[in-house]
């Protein structure tokens, strides 16, 4: 008899998972000397200043160091401040447009790099898409400043378009990562099966690929939104006069009088970001 090499069936794989050989022992927090100390220290450095910032946003007084009792005064003041309102609306508008366009582009890029045959330059494209993650933000900002400043002088045109273009480009790699990760876990044979069952390429995309990659797209959109919302360096360099976003407004305030109003705005941004990031993790961890 020729022995036919056994292919592992899903049942066997499940069995193997249930009865693993000798699994390596995990590290134990108790036996690693200093583990808890370092962990605790890191946590304190990361979160203590933020805690203080949040606490003082509720301070009755004007000081950032002396507690004078609880109040929502600074929240009320920030909400009533027209400059803050203006900057907040601009920030949201910018984040919405940039993350939407960026996510569409990232979706197409992810499809092109996972769902097509090998083509020359595929690895190169992959590297190019991710490069913005490696280039320091300040370099991107300076480069954009130089190009956009020239265009502004030539055309005299100073609308939001520059910020939208800059934020969109900056968002794309962040949106791309979760979408690509999602596509890579998706079995290509599902699309093959749809084609086999008389679906055209477009219907295959709409009925199978898109619904299955949807959690990745939403996650990418949220990540891009948060990134756009708190990008300060690029915005500061690219914006024209009167185009403050929340982060650049705060930066401007910090140069003058510092009141807990900045804390209040930060706390709101922090809460919004935390909610989006929590949603992001829920979406990326749930298996479809």
């Amino acid at each position, binding site marked *: *008899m020729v022995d*036919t090499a056994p292919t592992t069936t899903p049942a066997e794989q499940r069995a193997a998972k249930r009865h693993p050989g000798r699994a390596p022992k995990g590290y134990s927090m108790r036996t690693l000397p200093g583990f808890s100390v370092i962990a605790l220290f890191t946590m304190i450095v990361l979160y203590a200043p933020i805690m203080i910032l949040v606490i003082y946003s509720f301070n009755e007084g004007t000081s950032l160091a002396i507690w004078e009792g609880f109040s929502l005064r600074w929240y009320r003041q920030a909400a009533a401040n027209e400059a803050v309102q203006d900057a907040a609306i601009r920030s949201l508008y910018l984040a919405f447009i940039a993350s939407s366009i960026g996510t569409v582009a990232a979706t197409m890029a992810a499809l092109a790099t996972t769902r097509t045959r090998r083509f020359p330059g595929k690895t190169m494209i992959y590297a190019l898409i991710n490069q913005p993650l490696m280039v320091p933000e300040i370099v991107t900002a300076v480069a954009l400043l130089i190009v956009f400043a020239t265009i502004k002088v030539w055309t005299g045109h100073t609308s939001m378009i520059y910020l939208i273009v800059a934020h969109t480009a900056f968002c794309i790699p962040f949106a791309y990562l979760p979408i690509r990760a999602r596509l890579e876990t998706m079995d290509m044979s599902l699309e*093959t099966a749809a*084609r086999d*069952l*008389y679906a055209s390429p477009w219907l295959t995309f709409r009925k199978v690929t898109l619904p299955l990659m949807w959690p990745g797209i939403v996650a990418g959109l949220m990540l891009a939104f948060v990134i756009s919302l708190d990008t300060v360096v690029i915005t500061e360099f690219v914006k024209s006069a009167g185009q403050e976003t929340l982060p650049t407004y705060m930066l401007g305030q910090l140069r003058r009088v510092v009141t807990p109003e900045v804390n209040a705005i930060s706390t709101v941004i922090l809460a919004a970001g935390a909610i989006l990031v929590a949603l992001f993790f829920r979406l990326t961890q749930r298996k479809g």
Partner: protein
Amino acid sequence: MIDIDNVTKVFGAGDAAFTALSEVSVTIAENEFFTLLGPSGCGKTTLLRLIAGFEPPTAGAIRLGGRDITRLPPNQRPVNTVFQSYALFPHMSVAQNIAFGLEMLGKPKAEVKSTVDDMLRLVRMEAMRDRRTSEISGGQQQRVALARALAPHPEVLLLDEPLSALDLKLRKEMQIELKRLQSETGITFVFVTHDQEEALTMSDRVAVMSAGEILQVGPPRDIYERPAERFVANFIGESNFLNADLAGDSVTLAAGGTFPVRRPDGVRDGKVSVLVRPEHITLGGAGDTLRSTIENVVYSGEATVAHMVLPTGEPIKARLSNAPQGDGALPGAGSQVTIGLAPGAITVLRD
């Protein structure tokens, strides 16, 4: 019906090129249960993928009912596949999976519903129609995959090891079920397996493949009783290979004895290998002339297998059915016995 004409498939290019199929030609008849049998990696799935249209052949043509479909995209071929990995849509229920093909064909809602109901009944999954595909067992997933591929009533159904995940009992049931389906629906089945027994019991014809080539095509009985090559004989069933001399219509075994044989085409007189199936050998008959020495006797339920050596040193084994009562005891290791060959037991191989 399906005409595979000189099809070659090469994956990759340059140094990394790999020929998965080389100049395969075979014609599959309408409403035939045709099985591709061969070891892992021999190109069975690749051949199915070419018929389904998921890959274009590197050379050659594929025709369906006389029409050249070589370049037709998969959604325009009246061919459906039961995938080796099932490939059920995880975001749809069992019923939605089965309805998918019909909906893509634009069938009216009422027809879709009644066909889906029929299919669910057929694979006995009515109770699970609204389950997600992740909430059913492996065997049930396989049945849904079968129902989904059958629902649009294709002209050809391709099945890639569809029973491999089932336990023995369900597997036997599904074998009978598949066979019934095939004769009732009039659909041509192209079935892939590397289980020889499954291939022999279910098929009208079997193609034995090895390393990208079809070695032999024929009805199960031909494949088993008259394998053309050593590989085929070896892959299907138990075999004894003996050296012999072929002269005209008879062979003389190296171990002695001359027997009449069917002479295959293209084999010249002289030294040949012959095949003798272990169950075609008897021991201690009256007129037996071949002598051998017993090395080992193994009892295996319905039969006893005697491992022996001929005076030439060639090993030979005999498979003897166990009698209902009788002590059935064979002489022990080291004893001499005579061997008899049933008429027609010797097959001359072409290698």
